[in-house]
């Protein structure tokens, strides 16, 4: 049984039919990426999994349990954390407070303190800035904070929405290095990216989303070599 199974979901924004039957699977320990153009429904897919949007049809099964009956904050308790698009850190709270919010659902203070050390080891810049207010961080640091904040929930599955958006190329590499590191330490990742080349390079498997439908599914390497993907998403002729 897969860790996460999304079965034929249809999600609407008002009358706009945004997802037209998306199905995907994420196995324990994988990095799975979701690529596609603007408005293809990548973010919508993640927001539906996290419970911010409700599918009108289809269901989402996480660890054998249908998520339909849970509210967004309960889905986090089930073990799904998200790094939202545009980072959405709490700009007026300090880095430490942001991380504490990430660990909001956890009661074991001892383990939280250990994970804080682990996160600081993973992203040492945050340790230097831990007393600073989130809004004063640079874009890359904010992305690191958003990632660290989600990790503080110790999720089974981490959803990442455009982690490289708006970052300088050096930082993009740093972020993808972090993604691989997090995954090696045992967190399953579902990644949504505009930067298809980077995403496919780190992913075990990938899905291509076009106007609300999954049009392709393969391993990361195979998708990278697929001529249609190369033409549409990797900018190669």
């Amino acid at each position, binding site marked *: 049984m897969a860790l996460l199974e999304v079965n034929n979901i249809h999600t609407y924004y008002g009358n706009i039919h945004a997802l037209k039957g998306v199905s995907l699977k994420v196995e324990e320990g994988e990095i799975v990426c979701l690529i596609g153009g603007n408005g293809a429904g990548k973010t919508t897919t993640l927001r539906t999994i*996290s*419970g*911010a949007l409700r599918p009108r049809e289809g269901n989402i099964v996480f660890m054998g349990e249908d998520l339909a009956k849970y*509210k*967004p*904050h*309960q889905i*986090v*308790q089930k073990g799904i*954390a*998200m790094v*939202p698009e545009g980072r*959405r*850190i*709490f*700009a*007026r*709270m300090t880095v430490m*407070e942001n991380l*504490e*919010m*990430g660990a*909001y*659902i956890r009661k074991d203070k001892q383990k939280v303190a250990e994970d804080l050390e682990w996160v600081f080891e993973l992203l040492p810049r945050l340790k230097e800035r831990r007393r600073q207010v989130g809004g004063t961080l640079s874009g890359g640091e904010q992305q690191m904070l958003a990632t660290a*904040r*989600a990790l503080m*929930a110790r999720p089974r599955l981490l959803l990442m929405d455009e982690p490289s958006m708006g970052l300088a190329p050096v930082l993009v590499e740093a972020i993808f290095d972090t993604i691989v590191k997090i995954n090696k330490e045992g967190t399953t990742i579902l990644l949504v990216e505009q930067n298809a080349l980077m995403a496919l390079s780190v992913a075990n498997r990938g899905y291509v989303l076009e106007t609300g439908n999954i049009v392709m599914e393969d391993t990361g390497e195979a998708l990278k070599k697929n001529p249609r993907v190369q033409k549409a998403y990797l900018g190669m002729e």
Partner: protein
Amino acid sequence: MFRTWRQKITLTDILVWVIGLSIAAVVIWGTISTLQSGKYSAESWFDLVVKGLALGGVYALIAMGYTLVYGILRMINFAHSEVFMSGPFTAVFLANALNNSGFLNRYPLLGILAVAVLSMAVSMSVAVLVERVAYRPLRNAPRLVPLITAIGASFFLQYTFRGFYGSGFEAYPTIEALNGAWQLGTVRLFKTQVVVILAAIVMMFMLYAIVMWSKLGKAMRAVSEDKEAAALMGIDVDGIIVFTFALGGAAAGAGGVLYILQFPVVHFYMGFIPGLKAFTSAVLGGIGNVPGAFLGAMVLGLLESVGPNLFLDGLGIPVASQLKDAIAFIILVFILIFRPSGILGERLTQTKV
């Protein structure tokens, strides 16, 4: 205001400055002539300042309800004056019962605490109930809609409590232990006012500590910044909103007890003026800002108590203290013209640009 300096100065700006300056001139002139006339001694000024701070303490506690709810929902809870009224209006019956049995004068501290606990509990329940019935079903409605239900809830509560307790005035018993004043040299300190100021400061500090340092307080701040991101942290947004209303309601109930220590008469309409003043304090200090609400309330309390005598007495205006509300609100209007975000509020216009 300073931006318009560099861009272009319109006729309205000039008019505003002229009116502002002439009010400032009247205030300065009035102050100088009052002080020159020597009609009031240093001791009576001291009395007025203490009175103003005691008044400010009450406004500060009520203002917390406005400012916390605004911070979370970006909405003015106009039913908050009735949240404030419900506590002391209910607790008066307990206070009288305690007084008749002689308990209140034998154990004044316990008695006041019991009254305060009841008042806070009632105000808190009313606040939570209002949120549940009048605001939560409209969470995603246009912003004007909950404003209308707020006013509706306000009237509903006024007349419900009138139905419960009647439209008459109920008097709180006097507490002998708080009668009179302490004499410190030439300065006189009324016991009630000292108790009110100290209690208000302690409670404001507790509220500040809850908001800044407790887990729930941090979650409140997270929800006030970004509800969807807060939900992604596993924070129960609706639960936090209920907690916010409960906290603001309890503060209003406590403020109600401090209010009746100074003005020991309650009736179903008693919430309106203190509620309006507390709302003013919250705006004056920068709405959504906890220390701002405290500062705004103290400034308003002082303006109200010291203002009339200081600014107007020297100009030969009879019974200047009757103009206290006029003074308080005129100065409010001008502070807001020159600093629309309040004393401690963020300069929204600048950060948005």
